[in-house]
């Protein structure tokens, strides 16, 4: 079976002042269309590096990324990224931030009116219609991240890449955004690769959780299929024995089998 997104024997070495540092060793992962995959692991295990390689922002030293049968080696909007700290342009409003992306991608393909409708549609998806013309420093962290997601969705990506999208948010805002994301996912059925270090988030959102072993030379440790029916509701799941088993599995992997070494190796996130 040929996968939709194939992370094919990827290894990554960085040049550091103290010589070469091998961050990833032979990472191999096949992702199906419409699948929601989380990468989880201790910080410094190279999960962000994997995401950056899929995005094309880093070039793998060995191996490569194949998307729908074509190798990709540079960044592009079909692999839209939601960055951890929103990375909105601070001088543009929410609407203008999405507009910048839409104008670039649908130049000549959509009319002006269609673009406007598309921008507003995507901001409505993330419940930001009330603050279209606010600038990033006028809205909260959660709202900024919503706009960031709207911008990524507006690129109509084949694969949506999310780098700890909710990592910098407080718990309540985070759970709101997770609910929003599940709601969007139910309708759009995007292929999503998400980095997280939050076990609950991974189990709640994912179809599969990829647990990464510790670096240096990190690799895929274990893959856990999450076979929970959708739509999922966090309150109902709290009493679900399967949910708790999955949670325990991930925790066990992270804290028993791959406990963080006492002496941290040089950190490459």
């Amino acid at each position, binding site marked *: 079976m040929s996968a939709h997104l194939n992370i094919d024997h990827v290894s990554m070495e960085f040049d550091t002042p103290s010589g070469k540092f091998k961050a990833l060793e032979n990472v191999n992962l096949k992702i199906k269309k419409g699948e929601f995959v989380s990468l989880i692991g201790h910080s410094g295990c190279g999960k962000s590096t994997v995401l950056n390689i899929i*995005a*094309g*922002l880093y070039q793998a030293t060995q191996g490569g990324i194949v998307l729908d049968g074509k190798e990709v080696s*540079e*960044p*592009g*909007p079909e*692999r*839209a*990224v939601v*960055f951890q*700290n929103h*990375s909105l*342009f*601070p*001088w543009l409003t929410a609407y203008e931030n999405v507009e*910048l*992306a839409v104008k*670039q*991608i649908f130049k000549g393909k959509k009319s002006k009116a269609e673009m406007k409708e598309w921008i507003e549609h995507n901001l409505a998806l993330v419940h930001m219609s009330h603050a279209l013309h606010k*600038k990033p420093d006028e809205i909260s962290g959660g709202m900024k991240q919503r706009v960031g997601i709207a911008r990524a969705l507006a*690129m109509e990506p084949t694969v949506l890449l999310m780098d700890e999208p909710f990592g910098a948010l407080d718990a309540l805002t985070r759970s709101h955004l997770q609910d929003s994301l599940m709601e969007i996912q139910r309708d759009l059925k995007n292929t999503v690769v998400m980095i997280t270090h939050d076990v609950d988030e991974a189990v709640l959102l994912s179809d599969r959780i990829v647990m990464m072993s510790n670096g240096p030379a990190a690799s895929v440790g274990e893959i856990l299929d999450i076979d929970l029916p959708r739509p999922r509701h966090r309150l109902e799941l709290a009493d679900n024995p399967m949910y708790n088993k999955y949670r325990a599995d991930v925790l066990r992997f992270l804290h028993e089998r791959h406990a963080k070494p006492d002496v941290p190796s040089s950190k490459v996130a």
Partner: protein
Amino acid sequence: MNVVSKMEDLRIFAPWVRIIKGENRREQVNVLLRSLGVPILAFALFLGIWDSAAKSVVTSLGQVPGPSQVFEQAKGLWQEYRAESVKEEKFYERQEKRNAKKLAENPDATVKWRDYRGRTTYPQQILTSLYTVFTGFILASLIAVPLGILTGLSQTLNNAMNPIIQIFKPVSPLAWLPIVTMVVSAVYVSDDPMFEKSFVTSAITVMLCCMWPTLINTAVGVSSISSDLLNVAKVLRLSWWSKIIKVVLPSAIPMIFTGMRMSLGVGWMVLIAAEMLAQNPGLGKFVWDEFQNGSSNSLGRIMVAVLTIGFIGFLLDWMMLQLQKYFSWDKSAVSR
């Protein structure tokens, strides 16, 4: 929003408005004393010290002028300007009448229209100085901003530019001027020159001295753009040009304006020296001419020029601050 509450937003009016409204008067009066009373008192004290110090120094041109003499000289300069304006008006009136009469006698007669060539007055000298400094400043910005952007984008170019910037930044305008004068004389040769050579020399000297702050600040602003924003540009596959226009330039705008504000300040300071030596008919030449003139009024008139230069410098800085506030998205960068 009504006018009263709008006025309340302005810091200068706020206490007055509140006093009128009757909001805890005592505190508002205190605010007024601190914000207005203290500066006024300090200025009065300064005038007092100046006055008594001036009386005790006698130069070959007489006593050093105190505040009141300087005020007299300022009035004198203004009267000269008024008188000159009247003369000019009369000159054109006479010319008009003369030519009209000629044409009435003989419709085919050739009449001459001459421009009035009277003495240069103080307000004209101020305008010349402003015109010169802005020419130099705009030329400097046109070079420094693009060059700064390129320098900020490329580490290699940054390494290349750094020693050049460091060496030329501290050079005094007085050192540049002879070279600029010679180069302008050699290169700018024309029978009917659009600009005076003295003007070109002064403007170029201003440019050479004031481009550095803009160049450095632009480069720093560009090189400190968050890498996340550049990654967004990469994901969107922005072309090099639209990356500059849509991402790099707007993120560096606050720093560019900080640099330009410093540049205009340096330019204004340098201009006076440049005008003195280049004999560009602005405030610098006014000071020099008064010094050479050596009448009993000279020191007072030079003091008027000193105060004018200071006040205009302050206005220019204020103007740049307003521009910076208007164009900057990062309000925290404006406070400097």
